[in-house]
């Protein structure tokens, strides 16, 4: 019996290029389709980037990228354009309905390109 060296599997993020950073208007979202997953990406006023699921859990529509970006008590947020529930861009938690949380995804800029990982 041969021994194979034991390797702990590390989940490396798989980065997908989304668009040039300059295509993201500050405080206005955009949606990316990554492997069938709809991801809403945002660039806030201070230049930070955020990625969350695009589906509004309350209406079921894929529209969160089209909401108004702002802050609540300093926390960056987006308001669903359907019925105005506000979601934290950092945690994905719905600030108007604690308990409802939408997915968030890692996001970064590489050589001017915005990249998101859904893995």
């Amino acid at each position: 019996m041969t021994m194979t060296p034991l390797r702990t599997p590390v989940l490396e993020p798989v980065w997908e290029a989304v668009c040039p950073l300059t295509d993201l208007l500050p405080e206005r979202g955009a949606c990316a389709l990554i492997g069938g997953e709809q991801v809403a990406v945002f660039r806030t006023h201070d230049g930070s980037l955020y990625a969350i699921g695009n589906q509004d859990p309350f209406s079921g529509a894929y529209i969160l990228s089209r909401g108004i970006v702002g802050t609540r008590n300093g926390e960056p947020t987006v308001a669903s354009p359907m019925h105005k529930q506000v979601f934290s861009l950092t945690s994905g938690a719905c600030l108007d309905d604690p308990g409802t949380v939408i997915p968030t995804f890692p996001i970064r800029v590489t050589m001017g390109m915005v990249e998101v990982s859904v893995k």
Partner: protein
Amino acid sequence: MTRVLIVGNGPSAHRLAETLTSRGFTGSVTILGEEPRGAYDRVALTTHLTEGRDLAYPDVPGVTTVIGTRVVSIEPAAKTVNGSIPYDVLVLATGSAPFVPPVPGRDLDGCHVYRTIDDLDAIRASAATATAGVVVGGGLLGLEAADALRGLGLETHIVEMSPWLMPRQVDEGGGAVLKKHVESLGLTVHVKSGVTRIEGEGRVTGLLTPDAGVIDAQVVVFSAGIRPRDELARGAGLQVGERGGIVVDDGMRTSDPSILAIGECALHDGQIYGLVAPCMTMAEVAADRIMGGTAAFTGADLSTKLKLLGVEVAQFGAMAGALDVTYLDPVAGVYKKLFVSDDASTLLGGICVGDASPYATLRSFVGAELPAAPSDLLFSPTAVELPGDAPVCSCNNVTKNDVTAAIKENDLTDVAGVKACTRAGTTCGSCLPLLKKILTESGVDTGTGLCEHFAHSRAELFTIVQVRGITTFTQLIDEHGTGRGCDICKPVVASILASLHNGHVLEGEQAALQDTNDHFLANLQKNGTYSIVPRIPGGEITPEKLIVIGEVARDFGLYTKITGGQRIDLFGARVEELPRIWRRLVDAGFESGHAYGKALRTVKSCVGSTWCRYGVQDSVTLAIDLELRYRGLRSPHKLKSAVSGCARECAEARSKDFGIIATEKGWNLYVGGNGGFTPRHADLLVQDVDTATLIRTIDRFLMFYIRTADRLQRTAAWLENLDGGLDRLRQIIVDDALGICADLDAQMAAHVATYADEWRATLDDPVKLRRFVSFVNAPGTPDPSIAFTTERDQIKPEILQVMSR
């Protein structure tokens, strides 16, 4: 997985489902309701008639609701209902049914009860062919029903067995004051009077009483008490009370441990509760028990405060006591009474008629030491500071301590925040003044601030932007606000900037302020698609243009509908299709109809003197001129107008923000009308004026409104809140009492001179066009979540899956 099955879909059932879901219940929840619609707010039932209000509760995500299905049997041994639907926990929330006394004739056409939306629709239909109505029963619900009949234009009588009205809430003295109020509204009250027979053949013609003889009436509404709907429970062998009601313990359990009962059908400690607040508490207790908790229902406060027929009536605590202090003003129709212990130190209860201001505060002191002399309490109760454990919101069981703690922990700054965090104030609303008071006591300024980012009202921000010449949101929030804005303040600032500078709404930073509708220059629909409304000024359109609309709709497969605003709406366009659709429309001479904006919508018109044999002026030409003049004008809320060619008023001008009706001599201008949620007829501002004067007056009216109105305040509410009302408005914009008319005129002139069609400008600008894609990384790909089915030969959005938690 636990399967919870709820029978009945009233307020109790809805609260139970909502509580389970919000607490993260992992089993399945199914509701079976017999009414042909989802759960709705029965407490506000009457507004369905008077205001046509939508009473539906929001759907609870993850809960299966079956409407129009009556449960006829329970099989406790098999744990099923209707022979086949299984449950692990069954909750009966079947409410109650109105009691109809067994008098002859009670089944005649025109006899009704007052419990459901269907009942009210039936009453409305009967009232259409009636001149008089009788309500049997002068309690809380009876008076409400009587007011509804009066509102439907009927001569209304109330027949009550007891010696005075509302015997369960007020004593004889209060009843006498109440009767005066009711009679002054033109209703006829017959107390100490029963019903012998309902007269009529087929349809009701009258009601025979033992002593008042026959009261002529074509509508009879029974409101003589309620009976719990315990028939299912009886059939299943559950224990019921002698006089009805499903017996439950403190955990809402019936005699079968797998079956709970909540709400008006439940009999707890010998008591049936006919008010919504205890029903809600029972629902919350049941939810807790289902999830393994130990919450208990230990009875409830039956205090009530209502406004019936414009009269405030309140009752709290006991209705008797060793000593009482009474205040009576027969002229103003005010009666207030406090019951106190024999040493005058403890408050036992009270009754108010005509002025219920002591209610909110004093209710919290029942059973406690009086905080001041009883007579002072009757007059200035609000000066009294509430004790911490005082119940503030009895509908939702919230104490002052709960509210204070929520304010501290969550840095709450307004009543809306308190409502969201504690639920206080979300049911009957009678505790809202107290919430405001507690906010103030906690050091929160409940002023006119727009939101957490601006302490200013919309009107104040407008002045700041104008006077300081501010042109960007960033400058405004840096200098006058905090944070980076939200969905409330950003659209407001966008609108102010647009009203003052009239640039393109998608220009530069402004684009980020717009609500999704303005951002895509189209209206968002429930499935994420958009609708398109080209402007059709005055509703006049050539056959060629009609054909273009038809062709565009056909080529893009859009659902097509004639709107209530005399134009055509095309639904179901994906974002990426909008520019191509508008290219075709703009090329054919159409422009944006601003259906998406807080801006001028339509100026409706009747056909007027050109064709109509009654018309005295050319209403179509004026409507078109006005629509073209004010198109694109951004305002605090949408603006609507109409022009009728004569007093017959076929254009419904008096339901508009500004409506014009032709006269032999010129035009009458009416302002402050509204359809919608709270309809209001517009008031006559100027009479018989020529066209130039008319337009100048409208210019000033609109600009003055844009300057001073609150966010999302239509002209109707604005005018009602304007100090000095219509007369003051006339002084300001006709007589120039403030000396601002030249300014207002110049502002409107600037708007008219700089108007440009937003859609044409967008199509000409590649940068603006870039936003019209579903996916930044796949611009050609349509959103795969959008799908349609077909109905009556047109598309219809497929229902979207809502995530359950």
